[in-house]
């Protein structure tokens, strides 16, 4: 029987527009755009030029600091253009896709007979290694780190999140192969939710399965690491999104790179919330054709409403695109006397509103901050939604003042910005906590480099 960890702190937010479990497939499109900055912490260096031909799985760019970490092309075709921004930063690599896709054949392999280095080299060669992230710093990892453990969380519990059990259907074999491959490199822990019953999760082999019983953010891999093997200074754990475990499995089972992922289209501005299958690099404009109920006053999010990034139709599917969310922007709401009105259609953790009476009601929230930024006034707000052995408020203060010693002492190596997403949601002082945490992590990464 799997180990069960009960968590009490946290908050489930019910939003309108949960994706129905039906799927449409986004067929081949003419152009794909791969965006290197979707890989956190990677300094991209191009290895292709405009006009070059690539097959699926050929490298498009590498990490400047670790050139052995290559990043695979999702499609075969021609490099049509490289979009650059300020200081020649690479914003996107635009690929003109072939009509018939050609795959770089990396050869099928039996993972059970591979060594740790064998797995690592196969992932590096196929341009998939960069999909492995790490704590500390919550960035794409590099092959020189020696992980003390690898964590995969199959539980996605953010509002409007993609249900991994649904994504898993039909991919069970690849998922298991991927897990076995990871387990060759370090002890691998698979975290699942108490309502997840899929056999491929509950009875996953070669990994230690842990059941997390509690509200969001129980599915955050950082929270799971904190409960099983907290990261001390100098240690590294790898974290892998379950979708990428499937990518890894496909590589070993078929010898090919196949970056097809399942994406939940959710949110109240989505005409019919559902799932789609699309390749990494697929432009949102293709996926969302006729899918939105509005074009104006629209907040498009690459990811879920708590941890996703602000997006637009020119964006494309990337590392964090497990969901695409569309909600109203709300910039013209002009709501009167918010400080005293009952506001029954608003969601709040505070009992000065009535949402506590309607636990199951799904809300249609817009992107307004709903208050001015203040100093931290209320105490205990962050800690009530942070199920980790960490004093969130004190850590945030240490980051704001740039006190590196204090940050280390208070456990910054154990957290990633997404762990503070709920705290940012409930914060009555409306501070940008995820940005602050990312700033602190970058500061330490630079300092320890």
């Amino acid at each position, binding site marked *: 029987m799997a180990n069960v960890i009960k968590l009490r702190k946290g908050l489930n937010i019910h939003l309108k527009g949960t994706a129905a479990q039906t799927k449409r497939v986004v067929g081949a499109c003419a152009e794909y755009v791969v965006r290197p900055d979707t890989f956190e912490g990677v300094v991209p260096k191009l290895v292709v030029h405009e006009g070059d031909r690539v097959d699926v799985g050929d490298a498009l760019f590498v990490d400047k600091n670790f050139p052995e970490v290559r990043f695979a092309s999702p499609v075969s075709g021609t490099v049509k253009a490289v979009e650059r921004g300020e200081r020649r930063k690479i914003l996107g690599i635009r690929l003109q896709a072939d009509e018939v896709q050609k795959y770089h054949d990396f050869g099928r392999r039996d993972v059970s007979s591979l060594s740790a280095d064998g797995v690592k080299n196969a992932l590096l060669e196929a341009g998939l290694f960069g999909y492995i992230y790490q704590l500390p710093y919550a960035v794409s990892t590099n092959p020189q780190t020696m992980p003390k453990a690898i964590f995969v969380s199959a539980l996605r519990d953010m509002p409007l999140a993609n249900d991994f059990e649904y994504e898993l259907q039909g991919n069970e074999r690849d998922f298991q192969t991927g897990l076995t491959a990871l387990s060759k490199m370090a002890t691998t822990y698979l975290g699942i939710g108490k309502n997840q019953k899929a056999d491929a999760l509950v009875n996953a082999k070669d990994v230690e399965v842990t059941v997390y019983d509690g509200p969001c953010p129980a599915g955050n891999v950082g929270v799971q690491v904190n409960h099983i093997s907290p990261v001390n200074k100098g240690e590294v754990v790898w974290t892998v999104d379950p979708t990428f475990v499937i990518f890894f499995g496909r590589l070993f089972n078929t010898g090919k790179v196949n970056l097809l992922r399942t994406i939940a289209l959710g949110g109240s501005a989505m005409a019919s919330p559902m799932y789609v299958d699309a390749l990494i690099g697929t432009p949102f404009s293709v996926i969302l054709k006729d899918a939105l109920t509005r074009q104006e006053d629209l907040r498009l999010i690459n990811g879920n409403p708590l941890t996703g990034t602000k997006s637009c139709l020119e964006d494309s599917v990337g590392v964090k695109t497990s969901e695409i969310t569309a*909600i109203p922007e709300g910039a013209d709401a002009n709501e009167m006397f918010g400080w005293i009105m009952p506001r029954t259609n608003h969601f709040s953790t505070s009992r000065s509103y009535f949402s506590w009476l309607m636990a199951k009601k799904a809300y249609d929230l817009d992107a*307004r901050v709903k208050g001015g930024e203040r100093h931290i006034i209320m105490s205990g707000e962050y800690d009530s939604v942070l199920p980790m052995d960490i004093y969130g408020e004190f850590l945030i203060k240490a980051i704001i003042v740039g006190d590196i010693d204090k940050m280390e002492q208070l456990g910054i190596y154990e957290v990633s910005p997404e762990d503070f997403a709920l705290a940012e949601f409930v914060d009555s002082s409306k501070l940008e906590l995820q940005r602050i945490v990312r700033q602190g992590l970058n500061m330490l990464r630079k300092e320890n480099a």
Partner: protein
Amino acid sequence: MKALRQYLDKIKPKFEPGGKLHAFQSIFDGLETFLYVPNTTSKVGTHIHDSIDSKRIMSMVVIAALPALLFGMYNVGYQNYAAAGHLADASFFDLFFFGFLAVLPKVVVSYAVGLGIEFAWAQWKHEEIQEGFLVTGILIPLIIPVNCPLWILMLAVAFSVVICKEIFGGTGMNIFNVALCARAFLFFSYPSKMTGDTVWVASNSILGFGYDLPDGFTAATPLGEIGVGANVPYSLSDMITGFIPGSIGETSVIAIGIGAIILLWTGIASWRTMGSVFGGGILMALLFKHLGMTSIDWYEHIVLGGFCFGAVFMATDPVTSARTHTGQWIYGFLIGAMALIIRVMNPGYPEGMMLAILFANMFAPLIDYYVVQANISKRMKRLTKNNK
């Protein structure tokens, strides 16, 4: 309503930098955000936000303080009519309206002076107006005697807002409770207006309401009388309902209790702090009674004076209290115990709640430091264990 929005949009540019009325931008912003929830949308981080904000929280505290204020007004009338011996022929309206007239100027002066400074300061610092004074502004009139002259109230408010809050960086950064600082300022600068037996009952009629009391009239608070060894002439039910002399808002346990329920229910006040203040106070009162050092029972200590008001409205100020859960238990207990120690063991001060809370405010960062340090030590231990 649309017309109002359009009008605000029309005049807004005048208040922006370069506009004619730029010097009043903070006032315009304050008014605009009072009327409308800001339409600002998130730029980075979470795209959705909880609807709670600092304005709503402060408004809730003000609402929680209203029962104490309204009862305080009524009691001011009650005490005056009772002292004049005309209680029997006065209506509820007479009593309340007299108290209303006596108390309202204090509320107005407190808000006018405090908000005036807040607006000017925000304009000077190019910051948004912070809502903290909404609460402070109503708490200050509640914790002073009714005969406190308005001019010294003005001084006290100005002192506490500038010296105890703004120079530390505004709401959220202050070390000491701002309302209590105002009271402490009055207490030590104008002791004759704050203590004794002539300040607690309004002694002049206002607009035909109430009675002029004779010059020699005196009425001490029950704690004052106990302090000099006299018997308390009030029943326990009077003490609980609040028909006793005292600072305007502190007398009625019932009115304060309604406030406490609002604060605890909305989660704005920490139940740990509040509970622990009572725990500390009760325990010390029992101990002193057992040792024969105090003549009254523990429940009388709790219902008399500013104990309840301090526990509910002052100790729970999140900014100046301990911020960790463990810290809140210690912090609250320290207040309760210290208030009783000052009351019983210090012959000079019949009441100790204000000093106890200010004392604990000073210790709150230290308490938190040790609580957080325990977490740090645990992490360090894990690190050294792993490195062995």
